[in-house]
């Protein structure tokens, strides 16, 4: 269970997170929606400890990540994987080396076993074996996302954070990525946080949906509950009436 309690964060005096309270149940996919620039990625970076809050707690199984430093933080991070918005694949490494990277750095597995696992993951992401020896700049946006997902999954983490997993992809590729998230989740039952603003596609993968607006969670529930939510800001966002939210 991940619990976020009264999380505050400001940049240059401007409050981005203004008292976030949120729970992400173990083994479930929680989706945080909200318009661009509302602080969804900032929230995600607090969970993994890349940013320190001005105030508040991020509890993972009762341990406050915001208080961890050094080796303890590193140990906590071994339980995580993150799928970054642009994939964050290492430019200097080919696809195989990118996916193998966490295993080579954090395990003592023999190369043969690493190769087997990498090819298994690439296959799971519907990536052909020839892709393994391409470099990130030779891949399309959708392929990059799938390679990044393969890298995120390679160590079978307990928790995966998805930062805008389908931003910039065409609708068929977005559906493919969401399908792969569903498929890998069904196989591994990891706890997931997806931050996204792609509606209604995100409802396909969500067990729970939270809406972030002006630094606070203004709605939380199942996808059906969110779709029926009475708050006009939620309805306006779902219907795409984004101008209403500019107040």
């Amino acid at each position: 269970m991940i619990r976020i309690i009264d999380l505050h964060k400001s940049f240059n005096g401007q409050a981005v997170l203004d008292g976030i309270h949120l729970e992400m149940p173990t083994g479930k996919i929680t989706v945080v929606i909200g318009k661009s620039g509302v602080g969804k990625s900032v929230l995600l970076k607090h969970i993994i400890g890349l940013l320190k809050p001005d105030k508040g707690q991020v509890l993972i199984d009762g341990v406050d990540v915001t208080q961890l430093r050094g080796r303890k933080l590193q140990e906590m991070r071994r339980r995580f994987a993150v799928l970054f918005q642009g994939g964050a694949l290492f430019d200097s490494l080919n696809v195989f080396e990118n996916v193998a990277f966490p295993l080579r750095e954090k395990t003592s597995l023999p190369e043969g076993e690493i190769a087997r696992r990498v090819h298994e993951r690439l296959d799971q992401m519907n990536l052909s074996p020839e892709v393994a020896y391409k470099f990130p700049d030779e891949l399309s946006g959708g392929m990059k996302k799938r390679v990044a997902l393969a890298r995120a999954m390679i160590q079978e983490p307990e928790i995966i954070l998805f930062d805008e997993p389908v931003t910039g992809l065409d609708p068929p590729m977005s559906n493919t990525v969401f399908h792969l998230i569903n498929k890998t989740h069904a196989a591994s039952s990891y706890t997931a946080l997806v931050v996204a603003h792609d509606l209604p596609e995100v409802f396909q993968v969500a067990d729970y949906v939270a809406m972030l607006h002006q630094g606070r969670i203004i709605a939380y529930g199942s996808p059906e509950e969110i779709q029926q939510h009475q708050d006009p800001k939620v309805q306006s966002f779902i219907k795409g009436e984004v101008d209403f939210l500019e107040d």
Partner: protein
Amino acid sequence: MVHFIRRLGRWLLNWVQEAGSMLLFLLQGLALAFVPPFRPRRLLQEINLIGVKSTLIVLLTAAFTGMVLALQGYYTLRKYGSEGALGSAVALSLIREMGPVLTALMVSARAGSAVTAEIGIMRITEQLDALDTMAVNPMQYVVMPKLLAGLIAVPLLTAIFDVVGILGGYLVGVVLLGVSSGSYFSGMVQSVVPLDINGGIVKSLVFGLTIIMVASYKGYHTEHGAEGVSRATNQTVVLSAVLVLAWDYILTSFFM
């Protein structure tokens, strides 16, 4: 007036703060060289990037510098009938000053800018964050091997510069202008003392570390996308060149 003094004070404070955080960055990077896991392959990759790939530009610069030194030296020394001292004049100029400084400036322009751009792009595309989330310290994985590579590669490049520069001077002084080969080398052997060579080595070590520290720091703290990378790269070349020249004066005053 008050406004001007306030701005000047703020600028000075920022400058001191940045110098301090750069020094801490350097110390942290070097300290991580003693912390496992050790990645010798990464170090070799960086020596290749910073050292081997700078060899051609260093060779060219060295050859022409030696040739110009010999040409200028010959016509100056000839006025006093001391053409025989050409070898020692070329060697001392190269070993004490020109070799370390010009090598450092070339490495700064070629490898320093490349290091900043590489790390800067890693920053803005979240590759450094990705390392962090994989429990791999980006300072240890990315920065530390570059600092060590700077320490190793720049003195070696300086040695190459000195040798090639002396040979360039030989080509012009001996082959083209007719100075005797024996006096060119014997004057050199008599006049170059260990202190000259040690001074050159110390300078090249300090310059190598300075260039890569500035380049890595600027790249690591890049902000604001592609424009930020461009600005950081520019700052690296300018700042490292100025620091090399400032260090040169300080170190020369120690080794005189």
